[in-house]
């Protein structure tokens, strides 16, 4: 079945299922994990299959439940902890950063492995508002000791989640809510995509667009638009923010001489800052044009679609930035979305 297409959510579920079948130390916990909706479909049926000891709901106690996961990991388990929104994990930053991230180092490597996957969902659309849509990957990426993964396509969602579960370190696995229903080719069976390697998703010679997660889909659309005017963008899906594949980005920029970074989080002090900064430090001479970052403006995420639609940059903004590098005017010609701008696809009809 080489052409099997499944959704990102199904890919996440399948990765979890396969790892649990293979390794009895893998277990899965989080608010709503065994409920009828199964965390946007990513955990459906797993409790039935693996029992309530290995797949379970938890109290609304984000901080302690993270500590519970850490404690079990220290003695050989491989917990996967899920939060339906990244914002909820702010209650557990102490455990994640002071404890989990530092653990291996602060005990001089003798503290035991800490294989822990924390799945965080970044909300967007349908009025999620300021407390249900923050995209704080830059925080996690800043912290040595953590690994940070942010896949775009179902193939990578599965392969990177498997790699994350098999990794002996705490891994923050960030899922953008607008990717869950996106379909893509996903092989059956166990395979893993290595943490720390970006991927060229579209080749091009004129400008590099390094993007992460959902923004990669916008970047690909932008690339098509730019192509109509003869600008060929190379789109690089960053995939893991820590370790960050600097070499892949520098290789591409070495070829194109131009860099756009598109990320789902705030622009200031965000992912793009790091990518632009190391590129400026390490490949300054290769740059034919000032680099450009695309990210969220400096305000919280508003609930009303009327302005949320302006808050989130889309393909047109990326394409315009690319065109500007060649002296062309901004584009308006990105295909009109066929669904309202505050939802990813017609299957998404609120309320959550």
């Amino acid at each position: 079945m080489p052409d099997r297409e499944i959704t990102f959510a199904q890919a996440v579920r399948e990765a979890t299922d396969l790892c649990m079948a293979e390794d009895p130390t893998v277990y899965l916990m989080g608010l709503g994990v065994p409920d009828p909706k199964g965390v946007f479909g990513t955990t459906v049926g797993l409790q039935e299959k693996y029992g309530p000891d290995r797949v379970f709901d938890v109290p609304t106690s984000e901080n302690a439940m993270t500590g519970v996961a850490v404690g079990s990991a220290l003695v050989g388990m491989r917990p996967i902890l899920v939060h339906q929104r990244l914002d909820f994990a702010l209650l557990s930053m102490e455990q994640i950063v002071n404890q989990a991230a530092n653990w291996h180092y602060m005990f001089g490597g003798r503290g035991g492995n800490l294989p822990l996957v924390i799945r965080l969902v970044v909300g967007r659309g349908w009025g999620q508002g300021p407390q249900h849509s923050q995209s704080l990957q830059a925080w996690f990426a800043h912290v040595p000791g953590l690994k940070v993964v942010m896949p775009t396509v179902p193939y990578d969602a599965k392969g990177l989640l498997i790699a994350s579960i098999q990794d002996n370190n705490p891994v923050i696995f960030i899922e953008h809510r607008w990717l869950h229903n996106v379909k893509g080719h996903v092989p059956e069976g166990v395979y893993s995509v290595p943490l720390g390697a970006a991927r060229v998703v579209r080749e091009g010679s004129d400008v590099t667009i390094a993007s992460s997660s959902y923004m990669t889909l916008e970047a690909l659309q932008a690339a098509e638009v730019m192509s109509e005017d003869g600008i060929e963008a190379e789109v690089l899906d960053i995939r893991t923010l820590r370790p960050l594949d600097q070499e892949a980005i520098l290789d591409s920029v070495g070829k194109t001489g131009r860099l756009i970074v598109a990320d789902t989080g705030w622009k200031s002090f965000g992912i793009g800052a790091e990518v632009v900064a190391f590129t400026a430090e390490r490949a300054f001479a290769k740059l034919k044009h000032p680099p450009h970052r695309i990210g969220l403006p400096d305000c919280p995420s508003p609930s009303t679609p009327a302005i949320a639609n302006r808050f989130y940059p889309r393909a047109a903004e990326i394409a315009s930035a690319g065109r500007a590098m060649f002296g062309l005017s901004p584009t308006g010609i990105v295909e009109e979305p066929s669904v309202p701008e505050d939802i990813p696809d017609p299957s998404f009809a609120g309320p959550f």
Partner: protein
Amino acid sequence: MSSMNAALLRDLYFGMLRIRIIEERIADLYYEQEMRCPVHLCIGQEAVSVGVCENLSVDDYVMSGHRSHGHYLAKGGDLPAMMAEMYGKVTGCCQGKGGSMHLLDRSVGFLGATAIVGSTIPMSVGAARASVMRGEERAVVSFFGEAACEEGVFHESLNFAALERLPVVFVCENNLYSVYSPLGVRQPEGQSVIDLAQGHGIESHEADGNDVVEVYNLSRRLIKEARGGGGPRFVEFKTYRWREHCGPAYDNEIGYRTEVEFQQWKARCPIERLETRLLEEGTLSPPDIKRMRSQVGEEIENAVAYAKQSSFPDESNLMEDVYAP
């Protein structure tokens, strides 16, 4: 209870009926997909909002969480502004920036509701401390669901309120579920949230949250005691949400709870219970009820019309109000 006067009983009845009719109208309209934000309806739980807030003056403060429509309305929050907020309009109580999970109306002491479980509990305590520092006589009511009692911040807040004997009344609406998760997977069997509060040395009570008269009488005493310097009070009201956790539908068929359970609770509808009694006692007549219904009907239709006719915020609004001047 027997000594409660008729006007008050009618007020309590009207307050609940009003919230019910408004919430049901929201549910109906939600299918139009013009309210594009998550909504958490309080249908079935109206007695708590009304019974508690009836005891508060406009100077008292209230804070709440994701399921706050009832609290907002019972505290006197502006209905058209709430509706406009849900429609994402600039006339909304947050100019559309908050949506259903972020209501506030400072003019009536409703200091805010936010979307993270438990997070306004310490703020309520802080507002109470500020009042004490200023020598103001004021009670603060903190509304939350039973899942909030699983958050550490709940305990930290209770400890501090008890330590400083602050005038906060903690009101827990225990509706047995957190989203689709029953109590049994979240709290130990046989434990009660009032034991937790009592552990902090706070006088705590448990009562029927579907009996508005009981809610009123108990919270009346607790609010008075807290406001009078008696220290914090805690009360757990057992109640039940009728519709899905978030959104307009009934969802008993999806499997996390039974239709039987739902029907049992529906039979204990706080509004019907009081209605039956008031009709029997003659405190209320069928025409009274009809009048009340049509009054609220008109009010909500006006609010909906206002909301629908209002403008969306201008795009230029996006970068405004990030900072206070």
